[in-house]
């Protein structure tokens, strides 16, 4: 019984391996960096950046080759929900470049805004320029540095941002020093009075509870956007979550601007929730206690 069963399993595994290989994806570039292997591939009408050869969940960025303006990922659309909380950012900070989809969209929408992007990996910057049409210059300023080091120094120098986007995690590895109460306090210090933080985080593992109580400990009430238990975006302001009617007004005003990205308020607004759906007693993550990767993978 047993050998037959395991043979079956083996066959199923083999078949699924063959299946993954037979999808028409085409690797066009690979790059080894200090931190990871970067793979650029094309599949259908999309070009994607991945940090792992064939694992779809490790995709960092995809861009549609037919309509480069349009967002491919759900999470990037959700990140833009930050604009409903502050519709006219002048100074923007983005931690984590990826293919540069978010900064390029913001630069197009707000030609007068100054956008700082902190990216630890020079190879990611290079690949974003080479394969995703990202260009740094007057408006888009890339700093190759650890996000925590940048935030600390910017805080001491008195820099302030109207919009901060944290997009530094992938599904396999979390920089643990970027998910602690102390780091969020440093980020909070960088926000202007009506500034907003948008964080792309996790929603599947036990880490969800811990990161929720950690954000809550720093920002109080926040907007929590979830889709299918896969994507989770935190939207927070200094003064807690703003009233719903202000968000509705901003959403209406932004409708035309966001349309080219491939979504509108009918889809995005219903995701806005302030209801805590996590274990309230989950231990807060701090510089002293931050086993994020263990909490994310083991339990």
């Amino acid at each position, binding site marked *: 019984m047993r050998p037959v069963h395991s043979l079956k399993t083996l066959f199923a595994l083999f078949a699924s391996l063959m299946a993954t290989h037979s999808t028409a994806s085409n690797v066009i570039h690979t790059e080894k960096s*200090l931190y990871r292997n970067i793979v650029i591939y094309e599949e259908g009408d999309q070009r994607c950046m991945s940090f792992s050869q064939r694992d779809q969940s490790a995709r960092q960025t995809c861009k549609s080759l037919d309509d480069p303006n349009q967002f491919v990922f759900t999470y990037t659309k959700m990140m833009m929900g930050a604009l409903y909380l502050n519709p006219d950012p002048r100074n923007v900070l983005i931690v984590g470049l990826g293919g540069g989809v978010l900064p390029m969209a913001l630069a197009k929408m707000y030609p007068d805004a100054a956008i700082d992007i902190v990216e*630890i990996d020079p190879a990611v910057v290079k690949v974003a320029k080479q394969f995703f049409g990202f260009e740094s210059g007057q408006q888009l300023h890339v700093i190759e*540095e*650890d996000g*925590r080091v940048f935030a600390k120094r910017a805080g001491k120098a008195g820099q302030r941002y109207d919009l901060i986007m944290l997009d530094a995690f992938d599904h396999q590895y979390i920089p643990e*020093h970027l998910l602690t109460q102390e780091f969020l306090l440093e980020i909070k210090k960088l926000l202007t009075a009506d500034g907003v933080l948008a964080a792309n985080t996790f929603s599947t593992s036990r880490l969800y509870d811990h990161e929720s109580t950690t954000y809550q400990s720093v920002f109080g009430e926040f907007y929590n956007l979830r889709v299918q238990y896969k994507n989770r975006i935190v939207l927070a302001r200094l003064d807690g979550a703003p009233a719903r009617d202000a968000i509705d007004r901003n959403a209406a005003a932004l409708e035309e601007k966001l349309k080219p990205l491939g979504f509108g308020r009918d889809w995005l607004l219903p995701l806005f929730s302030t209801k805590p759906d996590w274990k309230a007693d989950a231990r807060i993550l701090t*510089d*002293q206690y931050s086993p994020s990767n263990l909490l994310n993978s083991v339990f």
Partner: protein
Amino acid sequence: MQRIFIFLIAGWSGFFVMAIELLSGRILAPNFGNSIYVWGGVITVFMLALSVGYLLGGRLSLRDPSLRRLALLLMLGAATTIPVILLGDAVLDAVFDRVGDPRYGSLLAATLFFFIPTAIAGMVSPYAVRLLVRDPQSSGHCAGLLYFFSTFGSAAGTILTSFYLVLYFEIHQILAGLIGVSLILGSLATVLGNRENAPGP
């Protein structure tokens, strides 16, 4: 009994060094990030400190070697780790403000915090070899046994700290626990080792 304490001290010293080394990456990350060069700086400092420690430990073993002194080294290494808990943030912030390049910032901070305790921990092994060796013929055997306990302890310290301790305790709690065990083991070795030494050969 004396030999057991010598092996215990060597093993625990190996545990202590690797646990501290792993935690040091955590301690430095808020100020200097988690880049490869931060780990490079940490490992460099620990290796340099150990190499100096081996040299000093060997020298020290030339004069009146005793289990009491070995235990004292263990306790001294633990005691010099206490400033990491007490002065940690103040020192890290001061280094961050003065050294712009995070490579040299992390190297300097790691040196200030960990060079002395690690060098003292490095003194333990050659000193312990001196206590164990009775004749030249068994010296290799003794050294091998000692390396075994010391490096086995290092492996245990590495896996326990990174797999389990960080999941349940804060960094300072783990540090305090490590220091506590060193002090207790050192005291026990001093008391029990001495008692047996008096009527010994």
